[in-house]
């Protein structure tokens, strides 16, 4: 049901609670969070501590979904909004905190007992240390961190420089900056290196990704496997524990289950004749396929619930809240950013898929044999990380699989590695599928001051797709 309030601040209506109860609790690896607790947190505690997240302004890209009856979306919101408390609890329990990058695998960190946090989560951690922030206050804090990073490192860096600025400024402390490089980002290696002259004392390590085609190069797989083993032994040296191959295999099995569920969710959503949720709920649930949110078991629990809901909606022909009657279907690719889902939905479209995130979900790692080699093999197979021509072929397949009406390649400021192939991939997909494609740069995505260019371009593209489809 549509939910609006006079002050555009989100509040959960009471009639949703029974639906949430029926969906069951979130099962974490060390406890069970009841639906009563989720409800209390989302209706009483979180709106006071993190009011920015409940601001329904059109320029709040991070706002909570208005589809309150999709209760798995509420559970995903719970995972995000409880992040600060869970990070602090993990730190208090002595688990090493590791800054990684998005779009990589997580198994080695969990197997070694560490807490892997992508730059976006470093942002969330720092922002949510300040309670009571409205949207404007959240923006100001975010901009402060961004500018700190730019002053320290470079204005040419992408937005993740803010997360590194947080560490450089001593706002937060992590034990390691130890990302996988993957083939997605050229900034991360240099940003990690920047901490060598920092004062926060984090230990630095890179898991390298061999650039170029790794097919028929057994040494490339071995190189990544050796890097992963070094990562685990380095974390072990800090914790004093010994992570065994069986520990890693168990973690791989847990993440494989998570990935399978994420695929099942996406398949059910994308196969539905009518999009069963709005873009933001599809996005938030899909992201869980490669974002264990500190606890893969909890994510598995939320994915289970989401699959049940989406299948039920698909069977009964429910259309996602806020979507047009016949929305055009948009596939998004490019950097680790996406089209503002609220803008897409508002213009008469719906985002049906995103290459980043999905790519990391499509293959499982071997659960037997050398687990490091298994992970290396899996990583080197991720379509998003392949050479651009191969990636374009895969992207074209995804547009067909999702019955997309068009493709947007989006890159953010400073992302020269992805932006370099924007035209290449957009042109290739257009040639392969005949779909309209476009590529665009998004500056300051996630900040409420600068969405106009993004909004104008995305809306124009969606309108063009609607005209082409004859639904304008």
């Amino acid at each position, binding site marked *: 049901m549509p939910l609006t309030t006079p002050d555009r601040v989100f509040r959960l209506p009471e009639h949703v609670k029974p639906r949430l109860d029926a969906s069951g609790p979130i099962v974490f690896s060390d406890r069970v969070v009841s639906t009563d607790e989720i409800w209390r947190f989302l209706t009483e505690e979180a709106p006071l501590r993190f009011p920015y997240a409940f601001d329904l302004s059109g320029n709040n890209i991070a706002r909570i979904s208005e589809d309150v009856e999709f209760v798995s979306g509420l559970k995903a919101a719970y995972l995000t909004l409880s992040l600060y408390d869970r990070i602090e609890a993990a730190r208090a329990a002595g688990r090493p905190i590791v800054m990684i990058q998005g779009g990589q695998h997580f198994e080695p960190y969990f197997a070694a007992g560490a807490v892997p946090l992508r730059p976006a989560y470093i942002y969330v951690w720092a922002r949510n240390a300040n309670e009571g922030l409205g949207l404007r206050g959240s923006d100001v804090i975010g901009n402060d961190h961004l500018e700190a990073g730019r002053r320290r490192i470079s204005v040419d860096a992408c937005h993740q420089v803010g997360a590194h600025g947080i560490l450089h400024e001593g706002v937060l402390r992590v034990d390691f900056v130890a990302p996988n490089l993957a083939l997605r980002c050229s900034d991360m290696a240099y940003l990690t290196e920047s901490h*060598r002259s920092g004062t926060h004392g984090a230990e630095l*390590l890179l898991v390298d990704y*061999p650039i170029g085609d790794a097919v028929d190069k057994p040494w490339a797989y071995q190189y990544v496997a050796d890097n992963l083993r070094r990562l685990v032994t380095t974390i072990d040296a800090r914790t004093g524990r010994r992570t065994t191959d069986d520990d890693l295999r168990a973690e791989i099995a847990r993440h494989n289950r998570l990935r399978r569920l994420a695929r099942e969710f996406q398949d059910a959503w994308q196969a539905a004749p009518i999009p069963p949720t709005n873009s933001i709920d599809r996005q938030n649930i899909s992201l869980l396929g490669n974002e264990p949110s500190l606890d893969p078991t909890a994510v598995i629990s939320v994915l289970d619930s989401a699959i049940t809901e989406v299948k039920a909606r698909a069977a009964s022909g429910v259309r996602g809240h806020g979507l047009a009657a016949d929305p055009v279907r948009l596939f998004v690719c490019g950097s680790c950013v996406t089209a503002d889902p609220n803008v897409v939905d508002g213009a008469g479209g719906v985002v049906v898929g995103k290459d980043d995130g999905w790519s990391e979900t499509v293959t499982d790692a071997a659960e037997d044999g050398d687990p490091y080699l298994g992970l290396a093999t899996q990583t080197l197979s991720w379509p998003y990380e392949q050479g651009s*021509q191969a990636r374009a072929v895969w992207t074209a397949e995804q547009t067909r699989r999702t019955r997309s009406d068009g493709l947007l390649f989006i890159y953010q*400021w400073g992302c*020269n*590695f992805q*932006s*370099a192939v924007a035209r290449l991939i957009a042109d290739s997909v257009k040639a392969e599928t005949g779909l309209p494609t476009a590529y665009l*740069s998004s500056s300051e995505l996630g900040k409420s001051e600068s969405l106009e260019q993004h909004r104008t371009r995305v809306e124009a593209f969606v309108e063009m797709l609607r005209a082409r489809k004859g639904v304008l």
Partner: protein
Amino acid sequence: MSPATIDRLCEALRRRPAELAAARAAGTPVVGYFCCNVPEELVLAAGLVPVRLGSGGDERLVELGGRYISHQNCPFVRQNVGVFARAAGEAEGVDDSEEGARSGVGALRSAWAEHVDTVLVAATCPQIYRLGEVIESFFGRRVEILGVPRNFTSDEGRAYFRAEVAALADRLGAIGGQPVTPERLTTTVDLLARTRTAIRRLYDLQAAHPEVLSWRTVFETVHAGFVLDRGEYADLLEDLLAEATALAAEPVAELDDRIRLFLAGSVISPGDTKILDLVEELGARIVGDDLCTGLRPARQLVVKEPTLDALADAYLDRVPCAALPHLTLTGDRRLANIEASYREAGAEGVIYHSLRYCDPITFKANETKQVLGNQIPFLEIHTEYASSDTEGIRTRIDAFLEMIETAYPPKEWTDAAHNA
């Protein structure tokens, strides 16, 4: 007074396009490559003709390349996409009228891309890797990638790079129809060692004897080696060195008291003369560099034996590119090389040149300044190939020179001081 060998170098450059065309007609493929991490020894040992690609300083080509790659890529990458676009006949609307207008050793802006059969990319800088992808996709060029480990000081990185070099040797051998044998490798290793030795000596000589050779001439002489026949080039370098050494023994009428600058940072390619021109116009002179198109590739590269593993090790153990991250300040050979080269050249200040969106250099500017410390005057120039910032840069360099003159007493350059 200019060594006559320079005229021979210029003549060799003028001949070179026709020579490349003849080689290709005779069935010898030309391999154009990006980045000094490509072991040229391998290309030669496979019976191929190497040409190091990369030009700079041309806004028109940057604009042309930007149609295929992003405006957020560094101007070097954009320009060289533009070079391949032009070679593919895609230069409609680009004013090409001044192409080749420069003469002498600096006349290297011509599109060597036209003479290249295969493009070889060392994936040291991720953007250069993308450049390879783009020219392969849009212009149908055959592109080969040499993987370069970013954990380049680790044992696993070494094992990976050794395997990459061995695989590249096989691929090049297949392209050239001539397998890379130890005998051929011995010959090419020796040849390129001669070249590097001569370049190092020429750099020493220009620092001490600007009346004989300027840094600019030596820098452009290095660029000539990107395209000339490697055997002829080694001979010319040694002739130039002998001639310049003899000239340096003659008495000097007037001491050169211009401020001595060291140039560090992003690639400065043939055709990119903005900063070089400004330094000269403002009455200073460059005496040394750590550029990948200058002295750096000739320093500390020692192939201990003519084997593929030793070749791979030599390239890993050399002064690294900033694109290869080093996670501790201690043991960072790149930083150590800047400081050592600066002192060896007897420089009085560093101009740190960072190209827009050249992340490995730009991200490290603040840190490099801190590491070099307050005793070394340091000026970062963050720029593109566009001319719009020329006057602003002129003002900044001028003020930098005034600061050096005011804050640091002039010192007299002597061979004895240099050798000490």
